[in-house]
């Protein structure tokens, strides 16, 4: 019990004292996850909107696939990226394995289906509400895309945050393709896993608290933004 109590006190000191090792890990985590979510959004939003608005052969299959990929196991993604980027793999020449870039690639693969699948649902619902009116004003699906994305912006923000939640909390894939190398690819989740197995509960707890506070803050901000938007725009 005293061990855990001491660990909490040490963790508090690490966080408050802005321990440089801790800060480095947190910053790398944010950098990897934010970049991954940014790229996944850039791919997922147009992809989701396209699947929602256009009719093409195999559309049903694409929707099922996107929904299924939302639950993609991170270790499988890690394995696939590992095999692709390893020396013998098709992209081995770039020497990306065990770099932050490899971690970003893995997280993009994990997050893009979430953003695309949720975007498809949001845009499809909006289009069914707007279709007659927009067609009457002369806008088919393609011309309507900007207006639909804009009108769905608050729901889509929640979608992007769901992606960020998945990226920042995920440990299996970044562990495999990043390797958890100190000062290079060590992020919050992999550090927590390592420190717990080493018995250094202080650092693990400190990181855990930061991770939770971070995701709590982000989601609270999103919730308040959405509530304000509903009050304002109806």
């Amino acid at each position: 019990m005293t061990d855990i109590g001491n660990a909490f006190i040490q963790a508090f000191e690490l966080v408050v004292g802005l321990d440089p090792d801790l800060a480095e890990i947190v910053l790398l985590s944010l950098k990897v996850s934010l970049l991954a979510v940014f790229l996944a959004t850039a791919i997922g939003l147009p992809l989701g909107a396209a699947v929602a608005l256009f009719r093409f052969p195999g559309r049903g299959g694409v929707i099922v696939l996107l929904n299924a990929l939302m639950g993609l196991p991170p270790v499988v993604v890690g394995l696939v990226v590992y095999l692709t980027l390893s020396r013998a793999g098709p992209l081995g020449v770039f020497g990306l394995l065990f770099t932050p870039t490899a971690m970003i690639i893995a997280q993009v693969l994990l997050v893009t289906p979430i953003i695309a699948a949720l975007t498809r649902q949001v845009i499809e619902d909006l289009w069914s509400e707007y279709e007659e009116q927009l067609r009457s004003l002369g806008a088919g699906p393609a011309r309507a895309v900007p207006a639909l994305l804009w009108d769905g912006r608050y729901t889509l923000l929640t979608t992007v945050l769901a992606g960020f939640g998945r990226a920042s909390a995920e440990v299996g894939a970044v562990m495999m393709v990043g390797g958890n190398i100190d000062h290079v690819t060590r992020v919050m989740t992999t550090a927590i896993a390592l420190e717990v197995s080493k018995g250094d509960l202080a650092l693990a707890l400190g990181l855990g608290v930061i991770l939770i506070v971070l995701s709590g803050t982000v989601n609270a901000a999103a919730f308040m933004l959405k509530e304000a938007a509903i009050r304002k725009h109806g």
Partner: protein
Amino acid sequence: MDARTSILPLELSGVSFTAGGQRLIKDISATFEAGPRTIIVGPNGAGKSLFLRLCHGLIKPDAGQVLWNGGGDATPHQAMVFQRPVMLRRSAAANVDYALHLKGLPRNERRELVAEALARTGLSRFARSPARVLSFGEQQRLALARTWALNPQVLFLDEPTASLDPAATHSVEEIISAFHDAGTKIVMTTHDLGQARRLGDEVLFIYRGRILERAPVDRFFTAPENDLAQAFIKGELLWWRRGEGAEENEDREEGE
């Protein structure tokens, strides 16, 4: 309205529309000239809304033709107002602006048209309000403002006052009259027979996907020729009480 080439007359010949295996519009032929306000009446499910959508071009007929002045593209010169106005999640002014943007007008020309349309519909003070927090009646007026800015030659209205209170109905009717005064051809469906008398020049009675009577408004309400139209304006629930008579009527029509 101005010196533009008219898109009228609108000519429907042998137009049919089928959905779910049911023929909902049956071989309708009709011509609409510029000028008289046409009011379409008929029981629920008669095909009034479908008929408007076929004219407007939102749906395509399975058979027959919808021709504007012999066959040009009339899309930019005709507009429609729906029973339930659909507003984008932006300000009232931005909603009007968006319609003009879709029409391809440059930004500097749009501003003045937006202001004028809002003024004509009495919505100037709501210009910056989010459109979706306006009352239902105000949203319907905004839908009319959006249409006013587009300056159409023909305006279709699908029960525009169906869920409005008398005051809101009155202001919507005034705007519709203003459209007519400005030279826009009005084609409108309604369940409010008083409204049909107030706004209409001629009445089209649609029943089970067919036009059974078309007459000037006075004659339609005083001496309708069709027995179903007579029953309808008397308020008889003809779609079930007179079900068999209606079938006979259809057979007779088909035999012609």
